[in-house]
């Protein structure tokens, strides 16, 4: 199983079950939940099904490409089903079968793992899905996003692409996975995950742990914050403001990896990101209500 084949199968599977296929959002982020397709999609009353790949950057997890199991940037496949379907577990299990995992030969467990994102003011309850002892997915029923109760509740499924691919192939070094094959006039060449990403892992780890300019990042953090509040407060623009919140979050992660954030400062800084994200969520809901009212009047 190649990395790209895994992604293609997941997209096909969920598209066939009535999901939009979304795209990664082009701003650095720590997890697929931060993509506006999820953050805003999980808010409000409208039904919403979407699945997409999200490259997720976690500066603190960087290992210079030297650790065969850990990455600065890994890929999640994220599915949001709103409202959560009654057969959601069965749908998820069938998706594993679509990846070629024969359930008759494996051990599957759903173990309690409740998810919380203090930067997004979001939490949910659910499980880590454990296959033969390995965590391959996170499964969450969103209860709140941006401090607002989710009505209806969404189910969020997050697959760890690299993990599952290693598991399926039995290869125990991420960089030895095959991303895919390219066909040229000269023949077919398999391309390894390492070929595509190893140098990136090295440089981004070095940047996060050693080279990132702290002064610049502190300054950026404050400026993004100002810009975000200006957009949401003065203009009621929640998407451009939310972009700034995402940038704040990543900037904070870089500072954190550099050890520049003390334990006492940390909650205060996370709260600054959360406050902006929550303001965006409120502006979004207000906008949706106004839109709905306007549509009502037209009728």
């Amino acid at each position, binding site marked *: 199983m190649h990395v790209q084949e895994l992604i293609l199968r997941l997209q096909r599977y969920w598209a066939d079950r009535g999901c939009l296929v979304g795209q990664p959002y082009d701003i650095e982020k720590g997890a697929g939940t931060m993509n506006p397709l999820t953050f805003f999609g999980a808010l409000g009353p409208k039904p919403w099904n979407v699945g997409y790949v999200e490259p997720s950057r976690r500066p603190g997890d960087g*290992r210079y490409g030297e*650790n*065969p*199991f*850990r990455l600065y940037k890994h890929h999640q496949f994220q599915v949001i089903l709103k*409202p*959560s*379907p*009654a057969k959601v*577990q069965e749908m998820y*299990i069938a998706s594993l079968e679509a990846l070629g995992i024969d*359930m*008759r*030969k*494996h*051990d*599957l*467990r*759903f*173990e*309690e793992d*409740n998810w919380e994102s203090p930067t997004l003011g979001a939490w*949910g*309850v659910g*499980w880590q899905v454990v*296959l*033969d*002892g*390995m965590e391959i997915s996170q499964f969450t*029923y969103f*209860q709140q996003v941006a401090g607002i109760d*989710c*009505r*209806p*509740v969404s*189910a969020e499924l997050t697959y760890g692409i690299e993990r599952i691919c290693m*598991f399926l192939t*039995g290869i*125990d070094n991420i960089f030895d996975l095959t991303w895919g094959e390219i066909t040229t006039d000269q023949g077919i060449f398999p391309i390894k995950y390492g070929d595509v990403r190893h140098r990136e892992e090295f440089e981004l780890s070095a940047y996060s742990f050693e080279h990132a300019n702290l002064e610049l990042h502190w300054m950026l953090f404050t400026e993004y914050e100002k810009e975000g509040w200006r957009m949401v407060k003065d203009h009621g623009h929640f998407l451009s403001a939310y972009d700034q919140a995402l940038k704040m979050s990543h900037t904070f992660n870089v500072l954190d990896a550099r050890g520049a954030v*003390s*334990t*006492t400062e940390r909650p205060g800084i996370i709260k600054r990101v959360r406050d902006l994200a929550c303001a965006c969520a409120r502006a979004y809901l207000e906008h949706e209500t106004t839109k709905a009212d306007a549509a009502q009047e037209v009728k």
Partner: protein
Amino acid sequence: MDTRTLLLELHCEEIPARFLKSLSGEFAEAFKAWALEQKLDQLRTEFFYSPRKLAWRVEGLPVAQADQIEIQVGPPQRMCVDESGMPTQTGQKFAEKWGIEFSAVRFEQPTGKKEPCAVVTLKKEGRPTLQLLTEALPGLVSGLHVPKAMRWGYSEFEFVRPIRNILCLFGHEIVPIEIDGVKAGATTWGHRLYHRDHPEAMAIKHPEAYETTLESAGVVAAFGKRRRLMDDQLKRLAAEVAGQVVEDEELLDVLAEIVECPKIIRGEFPVSFLDLPKEVLVTSLKEHQKSFCIENDKGELLPCFLTAANRPDDPQGFVKGGNEWVLKARLYDARFFFAEDRRTRLETRLEKLSHLTFHRELGSYVEKTERITRIAEKLAADRGLDVALAREAARLCKADLVTLMVGEFPELQGVMGGEYLRNEGQPQDVWMAVKEHYQPVSAEGDIPTTPMGGVLAVADKLDTVVGCFAIGQIPTGSKDPLALRRAGQGIVRIAWEQGWTLNLADLVEEGLGAVKARAVKPESESREALLTFFRDRVAYQLEHSGLPGPVRRSALPAGWSDLKDLRARCEALSQFAEDARFASLAQSAKRIGNILKDEEPREEFDAALLQQDEEKALAAHLIRLEMAPDHGALLNSLAELVQPLEAFFNSVMVKCEDAALRSARLSLLHRLRKTFLRVADFSQWQ
């Protein structure tokens, strides 16, 4: 009356293991209370739980409530009937209230009343249990206290996880309840694996068939049975590789809670990981992979592990292979942390401790370390230990909190610091002390094995306890969020079991001195609270040591803070725990107490004033008692005092007219009591 068995099963998406037992128990209690209220007898309630099931079976429920006769007493007859024998307004109202004709009201004199009153007998027909259950069960379920409740889909119903099927039978009949849109039926679901080949739900014919039907579908419904089966497999699989399981009851509980089909798998990991400290391997395997380690008879680990699978077999070895693969990745991480942490000396991390808050009001770990150092130096000096080594151990004891390994496994705090210091070539006194200073970690846990470990452990705990008292964080009732009682108990246990010469009152002073700069409460207030706190801990220690009741009760009031003295007295007293003479001594001690109440006897008295033989004999005994060289000798003399004391009380009238004589007799008793109190307050010896 006919009885039947009730079976209720909520089939849910996977319920968190930690809630299974409490939810099952809570519902069983609530049901019992409800049945009692409904006057429905029950014989026996069993409960079952597994990751996807909460189920209860109640045997011996009657099919209907018994008819009930109720007697209602109303106003006196004279107020209900007028002189002509006609009903008054009051009488009419009483009949109306109970919905009967006035003619059906009787007049009788009920017990406890002085005159005849209006009385009605009401017959309440018992209702069918099926009906009662139908009405009550949904409320009993939704009334459960769910610690981390959730909603799902469009529903506003809250529960621990979504309910997907309800099985509810009363005998062979379905109890037609509905919870959050799910209607109860007579079917349920077995193991997912089973239903791949059997897509239909399973019919449960009657409540008694519950476990056997489920077992045929791959689910062992009873937790206890799963645990037993797994325990057997663990032992067998460990024995196969000539080892034994590193036991962990808590882990076994967890494994039995997370599977429906109990199966233990044995896997292997590369031998090279055995270079990691044993504690790291055991903790890593447990926390990350819910796995047991296996050790040989020398206590050395084997490169094997045991974990649970939720299926009956492992036909192609995928489950074993997968677990081995993941474990290797985890151990790889542990080895990375271990190597990274050792790249710099532990000492270089001390600076980072200034950013690590111990407690908002008590400052950072740097401040805590300074206080611990001060206390540890004093304790080491008192114990005749090397003060410089104590200072070094105290200075370094918290540095491992900022290592990668402890960041990953907080429960390895102390253990890692000790390991790293040993690696750096620090003296054994230092690294062992650091390694042991969190001990004992539980009421039954081991205490530090070395004197220096004891000193550091006491210093650390004392700082925590006294610090929290000084800022007003005092444990009350069941509230002890910072586990101060456990810390206090640890202090007492270490000093007691290591046989320290220690006065707890002095120790409290030492702690108060160290935390002065951060104290918020007035020192005298904290001191008083701390002395009470430690006295309770000492009382518990006596109980914990298995000392007989009379010994505990009488030894403590005669002095609790000097631990060595207390221990010696308790040991001496224990020799006499069964001695009948001491029971008599207790009587006399009480008598002396009563006589001396409200008196102010002088210390000295002129023995020549004493007149009767009995009191002269007693005075002679007193001299011998006061000269007793130790507790043992004193107690032996006390045992012989029974006769003379009884004789004294039988014949001597203490409070006589002659003031001088009376004063001498009171002094004699006073001095006797004082001598008693050197070992115990015998008036508490019951």
